[in-house]
């Protein structure tokens, strides 16, 4: 949905989104990285009616950017910077927990 406007000088950061390798840039938030990768749509499905959603506000207020990061669900992707090796999983409905 987004592309880089400039010849980006920031170092690359390798993450995976739903198992796919994605190259992000230092300074990207998780949401920015997913929106730029373009390989995964929709961003998530809601916990209430299972409708597709994507980040709306990018400033931490709307909670439409929720993703699972390194096994922890319902995290605000728009507030969390990417880091090398981060494993991101899209959410399909309600939060899942493991015992």
């Amino acid at each position, binding site marked *: 949905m987004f592309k*880089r*406007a*400039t010849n980006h000088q920031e170092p690359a950061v390798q993450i995976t989104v739903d198992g796919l390798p994605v190259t992000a840039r230092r*300074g990207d938030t998780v949401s920015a990285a997913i929106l730029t990768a373009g390989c995964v749509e929709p961003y998530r499905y809601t916990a209430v009616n299972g409708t597709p959603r994507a980040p709306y506000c990018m400033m931490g207020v709307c909670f439409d950017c929720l993703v699972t990061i390194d096994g922890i669900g319902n995290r605000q992707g728009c507030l969390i910077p990417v880091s090398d090796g981060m494993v991101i999983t899209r959410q399909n409905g309600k939060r899942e927990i493991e015992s």
Partner: protein
Amino acid sequence: MSFPESLHAAYDVIVIGAGPAGLAAAATTAEAGLRTLLVDENSAPGGQIYRAITTSPLKNSSILGKDYEAGNDLVHTFEKSGADRLAGCTVWSLDRERVVGLSCGGEARLIKAERVIIATGAMERPFPIPGWTLPGVMTIGAGQTLLKSSGLIPSGRLALAGQGPLLWLYAAQILRAGGHIAAIFDTTPLANYISAALHLPGFIFSPYWTKGLGLIREVKRAVKIVTGVTRLEAQGKNKLQTLVWEAGSRTGSIDLDVLMLHQGVVPHVNLAMAAGIKHEWDAIQLCFRPVLDESGNSSIKGIMIAGDGAGIGGAESAAERGRLAAIDTVANLRPDALAQIPSRDNVRNRLAQTMRGRAFLDHLYRPSKVFRIPQDASTIVCRCEEITAGEIRASIAIGATGPNQLKAYRRTGMGPCQGRLCSLTVTELMADERGKSPEEIGYYRLRSPVKPISLAELASIPQDETAIKAVVRG
């Protein structure tokens, strides 16, 4: 990120939010020798207006503009001041005793301050049109955040819709960054030009006048503009495909990949409301704002509010209001240090200058009722719980008189955003439907945690005997 070793157990001043108000306030109290902690949810300082000012990949001002650069001074001054900063840290609780609940790296802590300055700024006003929850529809603020922090511009066909200075600024920035905008749908009600004209003299002498006109001219040269827009509907199956629009009797549709919406900003009141601070309805800016004295003191002793969270005034006035709150704090906690910081009169004068032209902008960009109160029954109002305008009206018909009974009936405001994206719409819709003022209808009763925290974090808060006895009772 986690709590640093150097963090103190208590502070003279805790400032919440590292935008212009928070940076200026924290720098000023720290310069006066008060032990100051600045807490912010983002990893880098700047707030929304100066988002990613220290880390943006757009290194020169040719895209983002000179005003953005002003954030550098605020950050530098802050960094020299000796205040502590906690980045990537969420404030989830604030009580009347000024105990601040913090969450950082999966750990929760309570830290007490003599003074708390809330500088949580503004958020974009909800823009509840049919289809606004579709992937591909986002706010202009969101687009600008992606531009500032990652140098991103939309790919595919983009349109902007709405009104306000940010719309024109972002449009210009996108064009300068090499992006393309298929169309801009301007929702400014034509009648606003007349009501705003009364306030034109103040505006002409403000810096907004030339800057604003220049931006609009720059954008109009390159983009098709539809003015007087009266209806917008985003359509698409699993993502945005088409925007259908009406402007009076003119109608049309346009295929899009990204639609960005914006109709001004409103104070982000959740933390202040949850703390129990008294708020009132601002009939001009069409939002709730805290009841404050001239320095920013709220109805709760020792808790102040500065910046756009105190009522929308823009970035420059936010910084001055942050300084005013800081000066009042120093006057109370360390009056002998007042000589080391700017005088109240100077700050007041600068604040007055920065507020020039505000009335004109408030009137010109007062959003139209049709975009604040959804007319289509199927339009979602509460994005978290997926509750529509029709369901809210049906709830009023069976007896909901205000947001809190509605919440019980329909769960509006009970989701993770805790009413941030629906509360204003709910209040205005109920007021409209019931023939009451928004003030009479009121707001959701908010409580901590204002942002979700894990059960493990909450469980780690110190317990006491009384608390245990209140829970464990056989």
